[in-house]
């Protein structure tokens, strides 16, 4: 079982405002420790694909397997628990909980999982923040942090449960070039450390950093770009 993610013949339709097909028969698979990007223009369906792969969207045809488990047909609660354990999320708009400190934000998925004592989760979270060079902001309310800082906290949060796959939805979409560079480096480092990453982006630079890249156009995976595979 070297495939972390397998998607078979995904089709998705929007019913509102008019019936339209967003994803056309998409099949893809992801090896462990692979860093893959999905590139596409806005409206190409890349976000829709992301939400399906992320198990957040269950309204699709086809089959989705993550870590060998079939996601299609699971209940919402089962999916939530699965995401907690196996998937780390990084969104475009950071999506931290504003009333919580950076450290608390990172800890929450770990506390939810309950595989470790809260003291252990705290230590892990602290270590991750240090790794993201955010250690000294640990006790800051996340709403007081800058966008680049928030995104780094969000990455730490995605890593807290040692997920089998990290999914990022335009992680640099909202950042200036300096912060974008920092995030790129972090992703590259995470990939080198053996994490499995799938990132949605429209940034060619990002694609070049990845092991492989798909391009999505009008809902179909249309090409495969070799990335900077070592």
């Amino acid at each position, binding site marked *: 079982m070297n495939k972390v993610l397998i998607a078979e013949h995904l089709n998705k339709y929007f019913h509102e405002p008019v019936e339209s097909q967003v994803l056309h028969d998409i099949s893809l698979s992801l090896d462990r420790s692979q860093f893959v990007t999905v590139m596409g223009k806005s409206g190409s369906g890349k976000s829709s694909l992301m939400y399906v792969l992320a198990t957040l*969207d269950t309204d699709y045809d086809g089959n989705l397997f993550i870590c060998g488990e079939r996601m299609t047909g699971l209940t919402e609660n089962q999916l939530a628990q699965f*995401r907690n354990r196996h998937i780390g999320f990084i969104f475009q708009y950071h999506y931290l*909980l504003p009333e919580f400190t950076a450290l608390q934000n990172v800890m*929450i*998925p770990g*506390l939810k999982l309950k595989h470790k004592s809260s003291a252990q989760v705290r230590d892990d979270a602290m270590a991750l923040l240090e790794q993201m060079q955010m250690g000294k902001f640990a006790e800051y309310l996340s709403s007081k942090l800058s966008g680049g800082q928030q995104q780094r906290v969000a990455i730490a949060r995605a890593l807290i449960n040692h997920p089998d796959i990290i999914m990022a939805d335009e992680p640099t979409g909202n950042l200036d070039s300096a912060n974008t560079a920092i995030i790129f480096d972090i992703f590259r480092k995470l990939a080198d450390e053996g994490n499995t990453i799938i990132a949605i982006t429209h940034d060619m630079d990002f694609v070049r950093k990845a092991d492989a890249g798909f391009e999505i156009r009008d809902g179909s995976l249309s090409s495969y770009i070799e990335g900077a595979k070592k």
Partner: protein
Amino acid sequence: METFVNLGIAKVHLVSRKRQSFIALTGVAFGVSLYILLISFMEGINLYLMDSMLSSTPDVQLLANTGNSKSEVGPSGNIGSDFIKNTEVLLDHIREDKNVLAVSPVLTQQCILFSGPVQLNVRLDGVKINEEMQVLKLSGKMISGNASDLAYKSNGILLGKGLADKLNVGMGGTVTAFTPEGRMAQFRVVGVFRFGLGFVDNTRAFLNIGSVRQLMPAEPGQATSIHIRLKDPDKSKEMAESISSRYGVKAEDWATSNASILATVTARNVLTYVVSLALLVVAGFGIYNIINLTITSKMKDIAILKSIGFTGRDIATVFLSQCLVIGLIGSAIGALAGFGFSEALSRVSFPSSETVSFSYFPVSFKARYYLIGVFFGVATSLLPGLLPSIKASGTDPLSILRR
């Protein structure tokens, strides 16, 4: 924030919105404390009334069975001038009943009492005072003198407080009684009582049964009514029915005799509950508003929590536990404040009046009402939170993330 992550999140939500949480808390505390104050005061009044009523009314009162001649007016022109026949036999029979604590024969005569220029219509109850004192709790209601003194003062009389005041007589003073038939007698005041019910204290006098017998006049062994005290007052109604059917006399239990007072007790209870529930409902609306607002403003957070693995149930727990905490703390504060208010009210002096005998506001302190208050407080916090929390738990994270 540590072990129970849902509760930790709830706590952060509550603490980070101090003003809203405070307002919600205040609403619950206000409702609960006012409920407790109201109900304690009403219960104080009710207890006072019940005590006055039970001590001034026998559990069961036997009257002559006027049968078909109900409308017939006795020779003295007074209702109640019909005599119960064979009183002694009847008394002995009733005394033997194991439910009966005490019985007392009473001769009642309406007359006019004079003292100086004042004349008042009074109901004279001729009693064997030692027996009557076992039926009515006279001894505890004496303002001056001893009720039992009547036993050896053959021309003695016990006056109600209102009556004594209006006649302007005190201990040792004399009053003159005129019956409608024109007979008269003089009595010396040996005691003044106050049951705390105006219609008793203003119109009632007790004297020896012999005095009334001479005044009427009546035969020895005749009585207009028999007062009965039971071991268990709750059996009054059935005892009244069984005595009535067994001995062919008219029997009335205390609840029937005091139906109008009992009706006011019920009305007061209903009013109290309506008012205090209305208060709590208003507090509930406040909480609904606040929780609804919180959830609407936290839609993004809910989506994040769901995407990182929180289930719908977790989300509902986060918000419901906020309601629960508000309810519990608010109720606790409310119960304390309610106790404080009640305590304060019980120290406020009551405007003096001839109809009531309390000098301070009557307030009862019963743990039961505090528990009910807390229960309502928690319920009015949880119920309004239920709907928004369920709504939040069903939120589709996609609908927020897609924006």
